[in-house]
């Protein structure tokens, strides 16, 4: 690996020759910061070794802590206050029909804690009484049925780990980099263990007519959120889900019951699910015509673009996780594909000129977040960090130029291009795009 290293100053000079004058000035300024940053790092190391405060027996070792059930439903340490969902206020007209992002820059492993799963509401999160709630299945069926929550939980259940992603994830950056935070560039994705009954099991119960081809899923929220789902998906791996990560669904996630379409854009996994109608044609409702269709440069639009194609991003370092002193680091990130398992993730440190393979860590599951890492010894050299995911279908995550060449900049949804972080010599990380 050391063979690939080039000195920070040489790299800086090389990059500075290739950037426009504005950016070039920034680069040169950052070069100055580089040297001052280094001095600060050395000083702070000395301070730690010469300071005994951290070695004193702390107060919490000389007193009693709080007793059991002091927080009957546990909450994170007060020192983790910063690990919260956030929204971009200017993105939508109000918070009721809006979206928030998961703090993926802070998360470990592949499971998103329930309180941190990103939110997307079309008419707010309703308070649904599970006693009163019913799920009705009707239309082109032999025997329409209406289920209580108790009924649904008596069917054989399955638990699966899958990501959930809004197709607008990254959509603010089609035209250019905007957000100096990973949470805002990629935080519309989460991954949970979901528990429920296979939709195919319920469809067996009602008995499908021979003309049946589509399923309309409808929520009990104010928006009556509705999407047309092809029957093939319903019979393949769609689930009627009532639990996430071991507990009943959070209200934000559709309590008491939702549809879950693994690997598909999140809005198809209709929350607060109250009705499934079986039909022979799609319904072309508002959330599959006006919204969630992809406008192309020729003025035409793709519709029913359900699958979330392979994507990846480096979570450390990132704007929220800058590097401090030189030395050992793990470049780490997450990758996912709506078409199956992640097969490989490569990392580039030079803006995509050369790539090196990473190691996939822990569980590698189909249609789930997959963690990758690469040990790295940082000598203070600036870098253009990228990750590139390849899934089991052989699909290689595209560059932004490749994506824009086909789709232009007005499709809003499904921006899964290779992302670039600019690592500066002071360890700070900036969100940039490469032309």
């Amino acid at each position, binding site marked *: 690996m050391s063979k690939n290293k080039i000195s920070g100053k040489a790299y800086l000079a*090389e*990059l500075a*020759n*290739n*950037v*426009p004058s*504005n*950016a070039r000035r920034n680069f040169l300024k950052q070069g100055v910061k580089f040297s001052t940053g280094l001095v600060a790092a050395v000083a702070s190391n000395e301070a730690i070794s010469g300071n005994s405060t951290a070695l004193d027996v702390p107060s919490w070792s000389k007193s009693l802590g709080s007793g059991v059930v002091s927080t009957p439903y546990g909450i994170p340490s007060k020192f983790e*206050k*910063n690990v919260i969902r956030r929204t*971009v206020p*200017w993105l939508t007209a109000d918070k*009721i029909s809006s979206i928030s992002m998961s703090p993926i820059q802070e998360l470990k492993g592949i499971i998103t804690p329930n309180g941190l799963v990103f939110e997307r509401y079309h*008419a707010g999160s309703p308070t649904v009484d599970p006693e009163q709630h019913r799920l*009705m299945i*009707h239309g082109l069926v032999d025997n*329409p*049925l*209406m*289920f209580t929550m108790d009924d649904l939980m*008596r069917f054989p259940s399955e638990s699966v780990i899958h990501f959930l992603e809004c197709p607008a994830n990254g959509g603010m950056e089609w035209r*250019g*980099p905007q*957000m100096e935070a990973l949470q805002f560039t990629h935080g519309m994705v989460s991954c949970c263990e979901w528990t429920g009954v296979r939709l195919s099991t319920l469809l067996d*119960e009602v008995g499908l007519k021979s003309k049946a081809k589509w399923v*309309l899923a*409808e929520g009990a929220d*104010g*928006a*009556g959120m509705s999407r047309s789902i092809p029957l093939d998906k319903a019979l393949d791996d769609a689930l009627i889900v009532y639990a996430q990560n071991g507990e009943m669904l959070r209200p934000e996630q559709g309590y008491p019951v939702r549809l879950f379409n693994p690997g598909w854009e999140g809005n198809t996994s209709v929350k607060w699910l*109250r*009705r499934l*109608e079986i039909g022979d044609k799609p*319904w072309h*409702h*508002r959330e599959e*015509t*006006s919204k969630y269709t992809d406008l192309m*440069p020729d003025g*035409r*639009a*793709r519709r*029913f673009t*359900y699958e979330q194609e392979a994507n990846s991003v480096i979570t450390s370092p990132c704007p929220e996780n800058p590097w401090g002193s030189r030395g050992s680091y793990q470049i780490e990130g997450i990758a996912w594909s709506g078409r199956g398992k992640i097969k490989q993730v*490569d990392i580039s440190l030079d*803006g*995509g*000129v*050369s790539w090196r393979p990473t190691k996939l860590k822990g569980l590698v599951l189909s249609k789930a977040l997959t963690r990758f890492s690469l040990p790295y010894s940082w000598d203070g050299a600036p870098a*253009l960090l990228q990750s*590139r995911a*390849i899934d089991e279908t052989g699909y*290689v995550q595209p*560059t932004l130029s*490749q994506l824009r060449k086909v*789709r232009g900049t007005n499709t809003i949804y*499904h921006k899964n291009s290779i992302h670039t972080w600019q690592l500066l010599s002071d360890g700070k990380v*900036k969100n*940039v795009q*490469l032309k």
Partner: protein
Amino acid sequence: MYNSSKISIAITCAIALLFSAAALAGPKTSYGLGVTPTKEEIALWDIDVRPDGQGLPIGKGSAIEGEAMYEAKCASCHGSFGEGEGRWPPLAGGENTLKDDRPEKTVGSYWPYASTLWDYINRAMPFPAPKTLTVHEVYAITAYVLYLNDLIEDDYVLTQDNLAQVKMPNQDNFYADDRPDTHNTRCMNNCKKPKDIVIVQSLRGITPEQEEEQEQGAAKVEEKAKPTLSKNALAGEAPYKQSCFVCHGSGIADAPRTGDKNAWASRLKQGTPMLIKHAIEGYIGDAGVMPPKGGNMNLTDEQVTAAVHYMLEQN
């Protein structure tokens, strides 16, 4: 009862014998869970409408009839001419802009089917009070929005029979998902020339503040404020959140924002009773439009009154 169940067992056995070969081949046993809804029960829930008109209830309405309804229930967010207030969606205009740098996707310029409009208004609008419109109102407001887009005349009466015949200009410009549409390869070395790399930096100042203290601080203020509310104002909190917050939380349609002392001071000059009267009956002023009961006619006068007190006590 006893006899009939005996008979049914006998019949079941006979059928089982007749079809035992088929039974072995695979039909699953039913779990016997759930109940069969009646046709009437299904009809109560079955609200969806398709492009071919399937699902439309018997009814009618014209743009002439819809104009006042639209003005009262839709214009505060969507604008009197469908131009859209603030960041709320515009409904009209944008013809021939879909190839532009900044396309305007409206009902007229983008939506493929008129049925979608009927279905969406019926299931989700008006935003603060969804599923409160009558069938006649949905037909009339649908007609008015189509009229705003020059797709029908103002006296054209939309019905369950002719809505599917309204051809939307952009109907034929949608096509099925044909991805993957990119074909990147797994190059490992010399994948591009370093000198060709141009770095584009982000714009400054648009990333939201991430200091959580601010958010927590705001939440604390809200929590502290609650106990000081009068009983009347507390009763107004729920209707406020349901129907008033949309405009008074954000200030759209020039609504005085909750907590904005100055904005409310000028309105309060006319006295609280007049404010309540305007909130219940609606009001069109020099600055802003107040739809009757915030567009949610399901609210009682008492609920609207309480909501006004709730807003006033936030100042």
